[in-house]
């Protein structure tokens, strides 16, 4: 530092200045290379993860071929593995989660942007976001020790007696009152993704120009009509993006689901039966896998999960970008 000031204070010879310029240019070039390398490291991480799992799962994928996708076998003794049960469990639990979380998140976003008095918005919003900060293992423990007994004792028998007797959809709600199962996992997942979806919705609802809303109010719209006919269409793509962001989370969530899903490799129509999901299968069985083909099958499952979440999250990102682009154009 002292040397620099001295160099500035005394008008040095042209040679000195040239040398300094060259030095600065070299340092700048080096700096640029370092940060660019770090940037590419991010790209490398994602592609590396995909390729390494494809590589790790190659044995399972080449042995079982496409039947890996729709076989329900999961037999460690005879080395026969199929992914259908975990895929089914993953999709069903995520679907239940979205059925609950999407309307609730919309309600929360509506409440925080249009309904709640001003003094309430900040603390309620912070509380909902706090829900996102709780580690998933806490959800899992709470689910196992607190929520599962309640499901088993009250909710499952009630569902059995009431909805279980209905035609067609009754089959979904008939089952033993175990408490653990796909419905429980779906509900816990819903609680976990609500803060993600609602915070995206809330943010994009706030971007709607006040002029637009006020013109609707001036025409005599009620608050609900403004939200449903003005705010929602204006932010549609970003809202869909937020929903898919939540879906991506729900598909890949591991610990909370592992605790309450029951780890049962059985395909059952009832939501009250224990099942399995891709992430839960990997978490439960990976360290116990005693043969190469077993381990490879689990890694292949991870690869499937990666591909699915990649597609879902990419779609979410594209939809979210669409709104900001539309904002920029105006």
């Amino acid at each position, binding site marked *: 530092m002292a040397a620099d000031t001295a160099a500035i204070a005394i008008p040095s010879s042209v040679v000195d200045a040239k040398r300094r310029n060259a030095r600065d240019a070299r340092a700048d070039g080096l700096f640029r290379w370092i940060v660019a390398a770090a940037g590419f490291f991010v790209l490398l991480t994602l592609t590396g993860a995909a390729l390494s799992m494809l590589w790790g799962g190659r044995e399972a994928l080449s042995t079982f071929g496409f039947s890996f996708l729709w076989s329900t076998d999961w037999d460690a003794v005879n080395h026969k593995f199929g992914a259908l049960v975990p895929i089914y469990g993953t999709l069903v639990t995520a679907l239940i989660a979205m059925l609950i979380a999407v309307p609730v998140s919309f309600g929360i976003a509506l409440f925080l942007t249009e309904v709640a008095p001003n003094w309430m918005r900040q603390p309620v919003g912070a509380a*909902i976001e706090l829900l996102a900060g709780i580690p998933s293992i806490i959800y899992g423990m709470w689910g196992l020790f607190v929520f599962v007994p309640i499901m088993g004792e009250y909710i499952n028998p009630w569902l059995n007696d009431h909805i279980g007797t209905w035609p067609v959809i009754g089959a979904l709600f008939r089952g033993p009152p175990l408490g653990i199962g796909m419905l429980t996992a779906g509900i816990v997942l819903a609680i976990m993704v609500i803060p993600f979806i609602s915070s995206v919705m809330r943010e994009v609802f706030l971007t709607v120009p006040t002029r637009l809303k006020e013109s609707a109010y001036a025409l005599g719209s009620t608050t609900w009509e403004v939200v449903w006919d003005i705010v929602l269409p204006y932010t549609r793509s970003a809202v869909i993006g937020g929903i898919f962001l939540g879906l991506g989370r729900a598909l890949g969530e591991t610990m909370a689901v592992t605790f309450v899903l029951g780890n049962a490799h059985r395909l059952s129509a009832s939501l009250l039966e224990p099942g399995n999901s891709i*992430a839960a299968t990997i978490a439960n069985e990976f360290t116990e896998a005693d043969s190469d083909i077993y381990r490879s099958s689990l*890694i292949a499952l991870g690869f499937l999960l990666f591909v699915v979440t990649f597609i879902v999250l990419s779609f979410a990102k594209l939809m979210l970008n669409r709104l900001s682009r539309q904002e920029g154009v105006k």
Partner: protein
Amino acid sequence: MSDVSERLYRKRRLINAWNLVASGACAAFGIFWLVWILWTTLKTGIAAMKPALFYEMTPPPGSDGGIANALFGSLVMSLGAILIGTPIGVAAGTYLAEFAKKRAIGEAIRFVNDILLSAPSIVLGLFVYTLVVRQTGHFSGYAGALALALIVLPVVVRTTDEMLQLVPSQMREAALSLGVPQWKVTLQVLYRSALPGIMTGILLALARISGETAPLLFTALNNQYWTNDLNSPMASVPVVIFQYAMSPYESWHSLAWAGAFVVTVFVLLLSVLSRAILLRNKVSND
């Protein structure tokens, strides 16, 4: 005629009132779970707290003990993850904000980073397993730290990128016009002004990894004993919680709740702290 419009008006008002009340119910629904989960964790956790937690090792089935080795393992691996993830993340964020702001490559990296941000953490665990554990032939604390670093990375990249973009361009131009080279402008002017934001990002990343279980399951594995050796399997609080909560033993359950309590309090403190840093910074900017 006016009767019809009166009825329509009343119907619209009713729908409106119903939906607004429902939205309030949704917010109450969200807060209900938060309170329930936190209350359970705090109540059961405090009941399970004891001094031995912090100086005794994880016990074999059925006997009493603490989680000192797990706390130490979590601490070491989290710090390691921050030490690996932060420099790379800050550098990558700098690249995005300062060198590739509007370029296609910048957009691509941002896209991938956002996906990494919400990618399932168990997948990152599998990645590190094939990359490190498979190659070295054993589970290790290093592998655990690396897996956690991959979770830290996108958080830090994102916040650094955003915070640097918030720095007014006049600041860059003023410094550059004095003849300061760009690396010096970045290190001494931009980072200084974006520091609170970047710190927040690091704290948020720390909060996120301190409860992460899935990536540690098959990288650091677990260890019943104290170990200073990062090259051997290491215990961590979340993995111990997982193992103990799934067990049939009452004493293990209570240790798991104590661990859950410690993790939850730590995570909540971190998120309050990071909020405070951001808020203070906002006020000073105004």
